[in-house]
């Protein structure tokens, strides 16, 4: 077994750059009968019904300081992942991304090497360039010949005018306890239907929680005394007002010291938000099911999906000093 594997991957000691034949779970035949050359990155051929699955995931990051001297920051990036089961040695597929009429252009587009050609206008918009309103804003066409396995067709970044959830976080030291006050507002443009939404409030460099007397206007609060962590689960929906609050006092009188962190000392503290919203994107970008074209004889089944998720979504305590997260806001 080993010699035959070695023979294929590094016959003379230098690894070859060829995927091993036989993609899992797909019916494949090794050699094509046609005259078309088989791509070296394609490990076999698909036989059977054509199916195309395109998933668009947007991720939002944010740093909110609630402080006049510091501009809040947020950015959005999206990835389009495809799984294509299409017959033929080198089948052609086209996926088109579209933006709403006044959407801001997609920037920093990176594509998979299987994309056959690119329009130069697609690559021009860049996040590091001066924002140019007249820039190309779609539709973004990606013609490609798919490999057998799922792959990331393209990724982009986008500049959206507002963050999906705007928060404010205030801590006040009061003798033996800490007064906590939090407000979270869901922006009206965001669909009020979450898969999940949680806010984590960790407290570092203090003794463990003693008495936690905190009220929330909506959702449910879990207190983890060992980790000095408050977990505020907001569930699937914000209330009608699209605003939730948390008020209360915490004393740190536990028997042992809690977790430590060199960054979050004194009143430097943050809330980290975790959420996912199905079937929406902040940039407005979407893949229409009918815009996916497969140039082959049989009719294909196409599924598309999109969702928004958070990552590194921080809301810093506005009464403490918060670390700078990007130089752009200083300059």
């Amino acid at each position, binding site marked *: 077994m080993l*010699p*035959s594997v070695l*023979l294929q991957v590094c*016959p*003379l000691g230098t690894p*070859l*750059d*060829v995927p091993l*034949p036989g993609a899992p779970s797909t019916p494949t035949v*090794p*050699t*094509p009968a*046609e*005259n*078309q*050359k*088989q*791509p*070296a*990155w*394609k490990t076999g051929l698909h036989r059977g019904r054509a199916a195309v699955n395109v998933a668009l995931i947007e*991720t939002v*990051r944010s740093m909110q300081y609630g402080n006049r001297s510091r501009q809040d920051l947020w*950015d959005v*990036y999206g*990835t389009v992942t495809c799984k294509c089961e299409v017959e033929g040695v*080198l089948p052609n597929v086209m996926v088109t991304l579209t933006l709403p009429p006044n959407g801001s252009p997609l920037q*920093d*587009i*990176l*594509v*998979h*090497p299987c*994309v*056959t*050609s*690119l329009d*130069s206008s*697609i*690559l*021009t918009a*860049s*996040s*590091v*360039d001066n924002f140019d309103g007249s820039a190309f804003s779609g539709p973004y066409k990606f013609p490609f010949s798919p490999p057998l396995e799922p792959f*990331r067709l393209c*990724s982009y*970044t986008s500049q959206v005018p507002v963050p999906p959830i705007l928060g404010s976080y205030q801590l006040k030291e009061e003798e033996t306890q800490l007064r906590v006050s939090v407000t979270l507002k869901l922006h009206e443009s965001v669909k009020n239907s979450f898969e999940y939404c949680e806010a984590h409030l960790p407290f570092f*460099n203090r003794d463990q929680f003693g008495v936690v007397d905190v009220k929330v206007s909506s959702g449910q609060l879990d207190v983890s005394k060992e980790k000095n962590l408050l977990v505020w689960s907001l569930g699937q929906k914000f209330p009608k007002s699209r605003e939730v609050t948390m008020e209360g006092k915490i004393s740190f009188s536990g028997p042992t010291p809690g977790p*430590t962190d*060199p*960054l979050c000392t004194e009143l430097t503290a943050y809330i980290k938000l975790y959420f996912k919203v199905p079937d929406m994107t902040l940039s407005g970008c979407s893949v229409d099911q009918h815009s996916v074209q497969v140039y082959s004889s049989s009719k294909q089944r196409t599924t598309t999906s999109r969702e928004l998720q958070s990552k590194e979504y921080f809301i810093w305590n506005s009464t403490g000093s918060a*670390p*700078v*997260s*990007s*130089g*752009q806001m*200083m*300059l």
Partner: protein
Amino acid sequence: MSEIWTQRILSFSRSPSRFLSGTTAEGFLAELLRELRDDRATYSLKVLLLAPLCESPSLLCLSDSLGEETALELMSVFNQCPPKSIQFRCHLLLALTSVLVCTSCVNNRSRASQDFLDLLLQISQDTNDLHGDVALRATACDCLREMEACSPGLLSQRLELLGGLRQRETSRLHQAYAGLHTLVLRNAVYQLTQETGAGAEHLKALLGGNTSVAWEAELDLMNNKDDSAVLSSLIRGPMGSVPTLQTGPDCKELRAVLSSLLEESYLLTPLSQAALLHRLTEVVAMVPGVSPAVFRAQLLRLLGTSEVCLFHSTLLMKSAFTDSLFSAEDEAFLLQRLVVLSQHPLLSPPEKLFYIDCILSFPENRPIGCGDDALPVLLTPRLASVLVPTVFNDSATLLARLHLLCLVYLEEADEEEEEGRGLGYLYDHLTSLLRIVDNGGSREIVVTFFRGAFLFLSYFFHVERFSHSLMEELCSLYLRHTHLAPHFINLADHIQEQLSESNWATEFLKALQGAITDAELTSKDLRWHLKMLARVAEEGEIKQQSTVNFLSHIITSSSLCVKGDWRLGNFLLGVCRRLLVHPGLDALLIPLADVLQHLACRYGDTDIRDHARLYYTLLTTLSKDKLAGVLSQGYGEGGGQAKKLTFSCIVAESEGLTSLLTVHRAKKIILKLVEEPQTETCETLNQNEDNPEEASVALEQYRAQFDVPGFASEIPLNYQLTHSESADSCFDQLFSIRLHFSLTDDHYEPLGDISVPCVFRERLPPSVKLRLKPRRPQPTSLHASAIFTTQDGLSWLTDLPDVHVAFQQTFLPLPAPETWGRGGRLSLFDGLWDEMSREEPTGGATSLFCCQLQEEALKTLVEKHFLPYLVSDQSDKEEIKVLFFLPPQSHLLMRIRSEETVHFNVATDNWQLLPHINSYLLTLTSSQEDTHT
């Protein structure tokens, strides 16, 4: 059989040289080839048998001619092999390639290598073979590529054939053919550039497969030249030059080949695409007749991808072709794209670091300066601002970004009078890192901070506003975290080394001195303070009064002296020692003498008192120059002389300790082991004889002794350890020698190390007793090495000549019970003899060795060689009985009778000893007269 082979191949793979020490390379190779031809062996075993030839052909084929023969042999195996055993045939091709490449048969264009090339080309063309032809063709293609890579230009004549193969191939194999084709093309074009007078005609002939053109005769030229150029990349940036081939504008054929390759490049995996583009870039760079515009159609596709290697190949193209392929706008776009990629949220940190590095060495169309620290002109502070470091970056990214931004703002600071806000930001960033360190950041963040501080200072030490306040921040950080002292010292050292024009480091150390001497003292900080002050005292420009005051204060006002901590004492002395050589010593004389005297009288540790007294004496009795002379020796270029070590190593901490702590490797052989001259004391036999009468009883008693573990299992060998002739005089006196022995086979148990106190050239050599414990009585040789110390305190490692243990050295006299006299030994001899010469298969064997020998000669021989092993009485002339005992439990018995010829009747219980005893007797008697067995 296959089990044994599997084991042998495994042990070969584990350590080929060790394996071959047990046999010979020629023998093993012959066995392998024989087994490969054997029809009974399975093909999976044969694949395994090829492993040694694939992995270490140069160990097995010791000469080129042997390589040639082996290759011919393997090819005939290949020809006889049934087509269906694809695996084996593939491995045979690999083994053949390895053998031919490693024994320079390919370079010499030997017959076997030409035949093999023909075979490979034939396989690659044979698409009709249905038996898994793809695998065989793939391997053949890999072999061709390997041979071309190792011997560039080998396949130049086959360019057209290879191009055709590549174009016809529709399976995934076309990638391998494309790689081969481009490599051969590139080497062939390079070869043409090296020939004077080569031009368009030659290129055309090459591509058309027309080999009749004249340059064929010069084909081998390439091998005579330095191959390094052809093997490495030809793209050397704007300043390097590429060899060129003058063809004029008419290169239709080459252009057609290039565009066909580029058109299909999309079908290759990204890495192969990058390799192909690199080769083709080289080709186009070498042939000015082809415009780089052939690549244009690919550029957008390459720039759009997220693949590092494809982006890199466009940068290579840019470096090679500059504005003949990339306009100014393209350049701006490319740089912008690099900045985007350097901070793209979806890329991994290593990828982003790579892109940052690409910015630093961006191939500009019109570079202004050259050198490492030249940023591209187009990288404006605005554009770079997205790359400012933040505390959320990982260490490597943070430092890379800091470096880049320092370069950006350095230019800005030079140009504008308001030393940009950017610089202020960088400083703020550094202080926020400092806060994290202050709050107990991890070791990683500490190191990152100090590196960052070094980077910042090395660019902006002249901006006093920042460099001064950084100094203050650092001082207060030190007082809060004294255990970081080594980092502070390191920072000062490196700044001093890097920026000789700045006095920042001196100012910094002075500030630290002030901070320490003014600070409230806690005992846990003391050792760090002393370490720091010792470093400060190395600066001649810094006044040391406050340091001496500090020392005098701590030794008089605290319990330091009473406690008498040895380590702290050494730190104290370390400071004093540096003060003794300080240029401002005159002003310190009295207070320093007071400190030393106090230490010498009051300190609780004798060693420290002694040293302090020595320093005190030196200080008070020697003139300043002499004192500096005596003490500065320790600061020399690392050890070598004993004098340098007279002051405790710990006191003089900064001296070349590394050289003392390193084991040096001796270039020549310094020591050797020689056999000690035999001083034979003939055993006096027990007079109070208590002999068993019967042979069987004697045997029983004798054998019972072996029930005690370890009985008579060791062979003591006496050697003398002496200098070898070639040893230098600095090795005349050696100390603490530790001898290490390693076995070359598994006939013996491993030996322990042996220590010898000293070896002096003029004294008697010390004797060394090796106690060998055999598993099988066989001759052997031992590798020996020694670690020792020379007079100057350095440690050395040297190899000794191998110690050879001859067959006769494994003999021991008969370990008979002590109470026995001659009678018992004789009956034992007879008993053993009977057993060995019996018909039944006891493992015994007998043999007869005859030779012509005078009686006198025989007598000398016996006396000289057999005396310790003699069983019969020396006066017994009729029959001499000799018994060699060979641990662990073998015996060799001899009855020597003198008739017309001398008969050596030999009996043994271990037939494998017979060849050895035969050759031993041959050597013994050959000096006499004609011998025959």
